C-alpha cells in the first residue's frame, strides 16, 4: 500500500534569470579594480569633442575624429563617446592627486562587421600620484591579468601608440592554442593630458589602462561570435547563471 504521509512533492524549481554576461564581466572587472584601490566614476555617453578628443591630446587631424570612425549627433555639436577616457578627464578636473579612478560602460565606434560592433563596452582606469612609473604600471597589469586569467597565463607587453599615454603598450596573453591575443592597452599618462587637467606634470605622473569587456568575456566564456551577446536570445543568456 502507498504511504500517503511520506510523499513529498517534487522540488519546485523556480526559474532564476541571469545577468547579461557583458554586464557581469564589466562588474567583475570593476570589483577587482575597486579591491586594488580604484574609485568608480561615471560619465555621459554623449560627449563633446573637447572631452572625447582635445583634452586627451587627440589632434584635430587624428583619423579617429573622422566621420567614418566616430558617430556625431545633433549637427556635430556632440558625439557618442568613442572610449570611456573622457570620464577620467572629468574626474581629474574635479579632484586633485593622488587619485585613482575607473570608469566602465558603453562606447561607440562606426564599425559593424563580424568582429566589430558599433556599440561595445570598456573599462578604463587611471592612477595619478608622484613618481608613478612604467614598472609600476607593469605590476598593476600583471595583477589584473593574473586575477582574470590565473597566474599561469603567459603575457607580453608590446610598444604601442595612444595619443593620451606615453610610453604606451599593448598587452597580449598566450592562448591555449599558442596564439597571442591582445587583452588591453595601457601606458603612462601623457604629461600633456595632465596639464590639460590642471595637474602639474613636473610633480605628478600617472598610469592608465583600458580593457575591452567583450574581448575578455569572449575568452572567459568561450564565445566566438561577438554578435551573440546582443541577440537577447534566452537560449544564450540562460547559460550564464
Amino acid at each position, binding site marked *: 500500500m*502507498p504511504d500517503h504521509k511520506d510523499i513529498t512533492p517534487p522540488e519546485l524549481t523556480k*526559474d532564476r*534569470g541571469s545577468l547579461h554576461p557583458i554586464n557581469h564581466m564589466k562588474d567583475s572587472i570593476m570589483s577587482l579594480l575597486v579591491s586594488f584601490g580604484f574609485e568608480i566614476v561615471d560619465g555621459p555617453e554623449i560627449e563633446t569633442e573637447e572631452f572625447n578628443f582635445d583634452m586627451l591630446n587627440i589632434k584635430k*587631424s587624428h583619423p579617429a575624429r573622422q566621420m567614418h570612425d566616430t558617430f556625431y549627433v545633433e549637427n556635430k555639436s556632440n558625439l557618442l563617446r568613442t572610449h570611456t577616457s573622457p570620464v577620467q578627464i572629468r574626474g581629474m578636473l574635479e579632484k586633485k592627486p593622488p587619485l585613482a579612478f575607473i570608469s566602465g560602460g558603453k562606447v561607440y565606434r562606426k564599425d559593424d562587421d563580424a568582429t566589430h560592433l558599433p556599440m561595445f563596452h570598456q573599462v578604463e582606469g587611471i592612477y595619478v600620484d608622484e613618481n608613478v612609473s612604467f614598472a*609600476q604600471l607593469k*605590476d598593476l597589469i600583471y595583477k589584473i591579468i593574473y586575477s582574470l586569467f590565473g597566474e599561469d597565463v603567459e603575457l607580453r607587453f608590446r*610598444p604601442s601608440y595612444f595619443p593620451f599615454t606615453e610610453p604606451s603598450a599593448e598587452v597580449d596573453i598566450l592562448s591555449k592554442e599558442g596564439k597571442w591575443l591582445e587583452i588591453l592597452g595601457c601606458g603612462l599618462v601623457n*604629461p600633456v593630458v595632465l596639464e590639460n587637467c590642471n595637474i602639474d606634470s613636473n610633480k605628478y605622473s600617472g598610469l592608465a589602462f583600458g580593457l575591452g569587456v567583450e574581448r575578455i568575456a569572449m575568452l572567459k566564456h568561450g564565445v566566438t561570435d561577438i554578435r551573440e551577446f546582443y541577440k537577447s536570445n*534566452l537560449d544564450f543568456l540562460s547559460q550564464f547563471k
Partner: protein
Amino acid sequence: MKIAYSHLSQYIEENPTIEQISDSLFQLGHEHEINSDIFDMEFTPNRGDCLSLNGLLRDLAVFYTVDFNQEIYTEKLNELQLDFENLSESTCPKISFLKLEIENIPEIYKGSLDNYFKDLSLNKNNLFTDVSNYLSYETGQPTHCYDASTMSGKLLFHEIDKNEEFETLLDKKITLSGKNSVFSLNDNIINLAGIVGGKSTSCSTNTKTVIVECAFFQPEAIIGKSVKYDIQSEASHKFERGVDPDCHDRVLRRFIKLVSEHANIKDMSIISYKSKDNPITQMPVNVGKINQIIGINISEKEYLSYLLKLGFIVEEGLIEVPSFRSDVKTQNDLAEEVARVIGYDNIATLEISIPKKEKTNHKAIENKLRFFLLDHGFYEVINSPFVSLSSEEAIKVDNPLDSNREFLRTNITNSLVDNLLFNERRQKDSIKLFEISDVYLSSNGINKKRKLSVVASGRVGLNYEDFSKKINKKYLTALFQEILPNEVFDFEILSRDLLDTKIKNEIVTLEVDIDRFSTNILSFKEISKSPESFAQYSPISDLPSSFKDISYSIKDYSKTQELQDLLLNYQSDIIKNVYIFDYFKNEKQEEIKIGFRFIFQSKKATLNSAEIELVYNDIVTKSLSISGISIPGI
C-alpha cells in the same frame, strides 16, 4: 607595408636571420606577419618615419650595425627654370622639383630597382614612375612624376573649395568637393596633392623627360582624403603620418643615381622652395627623469648610446631630435625610446600600492533591482540604442550606419518588445526581460535619463506551480510590491495588433526612471547572486524546437522519486530541456498525477517526427518499467 627580408639584411653587417629581425621588430613595437620572407608590417600611426626600408633600418640600427650604402648623385646641379607659384605655403612649406631628360628607355632593370619589383612581385609602369615608387619604398618620401612634355604653362599649388572634376592617373574620375590641396596647370587640376596624380600629365613608357615633385605636405591637409575619394594611395598613407621635411635633396639625388644606372641622362636641373625651416626639437639630457618615468636605473652613458644609435644628436647637454622623428617631443617620448630598446618585457616590475578608499556601494539601487528581477526569472539584456523611428525628442545621428539606425532610442521598451518577439519565434512561452540603460533625449539641450524597462509575457514560470499561470498586470504589480509596498507602478498592456505575431499572450511592460526607486529597496534580501565562475558557453541551435508532454499516474508514491530521477536526467542529443509542468496529489483516488514536458531541438538539422518518436518511445518504455506507474491512454 611589405618589406623584403633580403632588402633589410643586405644592409646589416651581422647578417641576422629572419627570425632574429622579427624578434627585434616586435621588441621595437613593429607588429608584422612573415609570408615567404616578406615582412607584412603594421605600424602605429605615430611612426610614419618607419614606412620605408630605411625607416626600419634606422630603428634596427639600435641592435645591429647598419651600413646604408645607398649611392646618391653628388655633383653640382643646375637650377631648374620653372614657372611655379605656391599659394598655400602653410600646407606645403617645402617643395622641390627635379627635371631629368634621358636619351634611352631601358628594357630591363638592375640592382635595387630590379630586386624591388621581383622580390615583392610588383607590376612595373614606366621607368620614372617605377623609380619614384621604389624611392618611396626605400626612403619613405613619396615623389610624383609629371611627363615634362605635358607641362607647359604656369604650375600652381593652391587650395580649392568648390566642386571640380578630376581624372586620376588610374583612370578614375572623381568629383573633388570641399577643401582640397591641388596642383593646377593653366587652371586645370593635374594633381590631388599627396593623394594621386592626374591622367593628363602622367608619365608613360615613352616619357623621356620628367619633372619630379618632392614635397612636404602638412598631414592635416591630407588626412581623410583617400577614404573620401575611395583611392588606395600609399603616398597619402605616408603624408598623413608625416614624412621627413629635410630629405628632399638626398631623395632627388638618389633619384638621379637610380635613373643613371639605367639610362644616359642628357640634362638635369633642380629647384627647391622653402617658406620656413623645419623647427628643431631639443631637450635637455636628463637620465634621472628617464629612470623615474620607466622605473629603472640606467647610466647616462647607456641612455645616450641608445639615442645615438637611433639617430638622435647629443651636444652640450642637449638632445636634438632628428627631422624624421616628428613624433618625439617630450621626455616621455624619449623614455619610450629607451623602454623599447631595453624591451618592455625586460623592464622589472615595481610593486604598486594604491591607497585604499572607503568602500562605496556604487549603483546599489540598480544592483538591488537587478537581483530582485533575477530572483523572479527575469533576464538582463543589452540593446543597441540606434533606431529608425524618430520622435520629437529623438537625437539624430549625423552619420548613421544606415537609415535604420538614424536616431537614438527614446525608450528602452521598444527594444525589449523586439527581443520578446525574437524569443517567441523561437518557441519560448515564458519570457521575462529587463534592461537598465541611459536614454538620451533632445529637449532644451541633451538630457540623460537612467531607466529600467521590464517586458514580460507568457507563463509565469516553467514549474508545476507557475506553468498554468499567465503573466499579467496583477502578477507584476504584486511582484514589485514585494520591494516597494507603498509604490504603485504603471504597468501597461501592449497591444499585439501592430506586432507581427499570432501569439495572444498579454505583453506587460513597464518603463520607469531609476530615480523612482528609493533606498528603501536596499533592505530587500535577494536570493540570486553574481555567478562566481564564468560558465563555458555551449553553442545554441537556431533550428525549430517542439515539445511532447507525458502525464503519469502513480499509485505507489514511493516510485515518484525514481521516475523523476529517470526523466529529469534522461540523456539525449535532441532533448534540450525537461521539466515538471504538472503535479497533483488526489487524496481520494490515492493517486499522484505528474506531467513532464520534453523540449526537443537538434543542433544539426530540423527534427522530423520519426526522430522525436524514437526518443519518446524509449522514454515511455523506460518509465513504464517502473512498477506502479502508468500513462493514462497508453
